[in-house]
Structure formats: structure tokens, C-alpha cells
């Protein structure tokens, strides 16, 4: 599957479930993103920006 590379971070993630799914879909490692919302809360725009700036997660190959 295309998304298989983006990993689920171990620690607490401050983003909603749908944003986390969007990150995976975009192949972005959400654990690496500094959110722009209050307290670092991650928004859809943060994911889009990370995806377009090529801030990719771990290699897109299944483990």
C-alpha cells in the first residue's frame, strides 16, 4: 500500500485522528511536525505544508 512508510510515532501526538490519517496518507511523519496551533497543535495546513516541502517520513517501503 502507498502509505506504508509513514510510521506511527511512539509518543503523544497533539493532532486529531483525522489529521493523523491525513499525515499518513501524505506520507508525512507526524511525529516530526511542529504544529502551528496553540501549544503546537497540528493542523491540516501543517500537514499540507510538510508534504509539499518534501519533509517526508521514513522511506516509503513496507518493513
Amino acid at each position: 500500500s502507498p502509505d506504508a512508510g509513514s510510521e506511527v510515532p511512539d509518543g503523544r501526538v497533539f493532532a486529531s485522528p483525522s489529521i493523523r490519517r491525513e499525515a499518513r496518507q501524505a506520507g508525512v511523519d507526524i511525529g516530526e511536525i511542529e504544529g502551528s496551533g496553540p501549544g503546537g497543535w497540528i493542523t491540516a495546513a501543517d500537514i499540507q505544508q510538510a508534504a509539499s516541502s518534501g519533509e517526508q517520513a521514513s522511506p516509503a517501503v513496507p518493513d
Partner: protein
Amino acid sequence: MVVGDVATGTDVLVIGAGPGGYVAAIRAGQLDQDVTLVEKEAYGGVCLNHGCIPSKALITATGVAHEAGHAEEMGIHADPEIDVGEMQEWKDGVVDQLTRGVEKLCKANQVNLVEGRAEFVGEHEARVVHSGEGQGAETVEFEHAIVATGSRPIEIPGFSYADEPVLDSKQALAMDGAPDSLVIVGAGYIGMELAGVFAKLGTDVTVVEMLDSVLPGYEADLARPVKKHAESLGVDFHFGQSATGWEESDDGIIVHTDAAGDDDEGLSLDTEKVLVAVGRQPVTDTVDLPAAGVETDDRGFVPTDDRARTNKDHIFAVGDVAGEPMLAHKGSKEGQVAAEVIAGEPAALDYQAIPSAVFTEPEIGTVGMTVAEAEDAGFEPMVGEFPFRASGRALTTGETDGFVRLVADAEDGFVLGGQVVGPEASELIAEIGLAVEMAATVEDVASTIHTHPTLSESVMEAAENALGHAIHTLNR
């Protein structure tokens, strides 16, 4: 899939129809997979047939009778009689309705249902042995498999469930009369839930626990009200005692225990029956995992990754067989994710928290981090609490034991978890669970208008207490 002697094929083979397996199968069907679900005993697995559902049915029914029988304070005078046989019939009807529902939902979602035991014979091949006489067996080739074979109660030396006075939880839930006396070995959630049921049926209940408290694994201040209430029902507790065996006596049996502490003595407890509820272990001996090359860990669980995959990429494991916490809703989530991953969706086990509930009186509900867990995870925790005795709604129901606690990150206010002991604790944690998943802050929870008078206001007040300005309790 056609049932017969010839080899048949399926995209997704799901083994076991508990809340892990049947949910996986339904979701796979919804995602247009060709899916086959094999179950050797009963649709719905342990949960619907011998676990969650029958236990909650008996807890509720005995609770209704007990509550009405003890409401003189409210001006209610009643002396309810419980006909255990009728109660069991009612409970069986509930179970029936739900298991038939599972079957119908599977069919409506194009799941091929097969009755029998499935056993791997290769990496992409399983044999299904049908249960009925002369039903034969067949070979199934699969692209993907989901192992959802569940768990069974652990047996301890000296107590065989085959012996008539020794019960596991399944047998206890099926009894059509209440024993005069019952020793329960194990004060975990299953033991404590059943202690309440039998105590309310009039059974003389004694609980023997190896460790030093009820509900080990839950924080002491959550467990305390549960123990206190059980004692008020007449339940006796012996901690630091391990049950070693039993023998017949003139009018029942005697259960023997060994003391953990050197200075303490073992016990000899007279009783009619003994229920052993010391934990559950994964079921893998029915399915021949080695034949498919699937590995297990030293406790017998099947290790999986964040996509519910085993060491074999095309074979998944979900539910109790895949490890702790052994809870129905954890299994269902894993089942959904396994099916979605197989269908190529960007799904993962990326939840922040798995809630859990204990249906004792009072109930316990927890989700996410405790204070200690938050500290371990590197947070500086901020805590808010609200006692139910300050809740208008709790007072109007007469159930005021317990409290709501919220744990948040002091820096940004994000809700990290919550612990509730008290009325409807199992329901109240739903909102806290959503707060954890959404990364809501305590301010978010505090600012959300909650209906008056409800128990859920207590969640809001706990959030306000964390912020130092609760209205209905003094702020620390």
C-alpha cells in the same frame, strides 16, 4: 467460497468470530474484499457469549433488584425476589439476539460464514475442519489472513475447570442458581464484577487475592470505593494468599491457600463452589501458527506492528491473541485496521488511548495516562478532580461515591488522560477519550457547556479545577 472437498480461495481469511474477527470481516466486506470468516463455536466469541455481554446483563439485573431493595432512604420499600433461572433465560435471550445480529451483519456485508476450525497448513493455505459429524474438511487458499482466535481462562495448579465445584467465568455466568457460598480466586475485574453479582444474589462471597489489593493495575484511590462497597455487600477479602487446591468436605469443599508473607498463615476456606479468575491466555493451539511461519512471544501472544501485522506481512493478528489489553474494543479497532490495511487504506493503530471500564459498584472508567504515566512520559502533569458528592445529579440518584480526575500537560493544557470511579464511569470516559484523541485542552473541556444536572458536568468541573477555578468544589 463454496464449502466442499476441493480447495477454495479467498482474499481475506478471518479465523475466529469474536469482536476482533467479526469486526475485521465486516470491515473487509465493506471494503469489497472477498472475505471468509471461520468460527468453531459461536458468533460473537467470548465477548458476546461468555464475557462482556452476559456479565453486564447479570450485573444490571442484580443491580436493579438490589437497588430497589435498598432504597428505604428514598421512601421505597421493596423486597425483590430474583428467580435466577428466569434471569438466565433473559440473559440468554440477549446473547442470542446479539449473536444472530452479528451473523446478519456479516451476511449483509458479504462475508462468507463458515462453521468449523481453521488451521494453517502453509503460508497461504489453511484447512477448515467442520464441526458436525461427517462434515469433512476443506482447504482454503488465502491472500491475507487475520488471526482472531482470542483467549481462554488460565488454569492454575490444583484447580481443574473439568471438576464440578471449580468454575471458570463462563461456567459462573451460566449457573442457573446461586450457590450458598463461593470462593473467588483473583480480585481482578472479572472476579470483582462477579463478586458483586453473586453477593447481590445472596451468596456468601470470599475473595482470595495473591497481591495486596483489589483491581491491581488500577490506582489505589479508584479501587478503594469498589472494595468498600463489596464489603458492604458482605464480601470477605483475603490478600496475599494464593489458592493451592481444594478437597471435598462433608457439606461442600475446602479451598486451601498459601500465604505470600512468611509470617502469615495459609487458609482453609469452606465453600460450595470456587471460581478461578486469575487471568486469560492467548489461544493459538487451535490454529497451527508455525505452519504459516507466524511467531509468538514467550507468553504465547502473537506480536504485531502498528498495522496489526504479524512477522508475516500478509498475516495479521487482532484481539486478545495479539496481546494486552485484552479488551473487546481494542480487538475491534485492530480488526478494523487490519481489514483497512489489507484493502490498501492508510489505516494504522495510531490511537492515543484505549479506554477501559470495570462494571463494579461503583464503576471504574479510565482512559489515557495516569499522573504517574504522564510523569514517566516526560510531562509535568496538571491535575483536576471533582468528587461526585458535590454533583447535584449524583445526589439525586443517591450514588455519590467516587470522583472524576483529569490529567493534563501543565505546559500547554492538553488532556492526557482521565480516571473516573463512580456512577456511569464507563460512559463518562467517552468524553474524556474524545478529548485525549482530539488533543483538547482542559480549557476546551471547561469551556464546553455541559447539561445540568448531569454526571458529565463533573468532567467539566474537574477541568475547571485543573485551571484553579472550579465552581462547585474548592480549588487546590
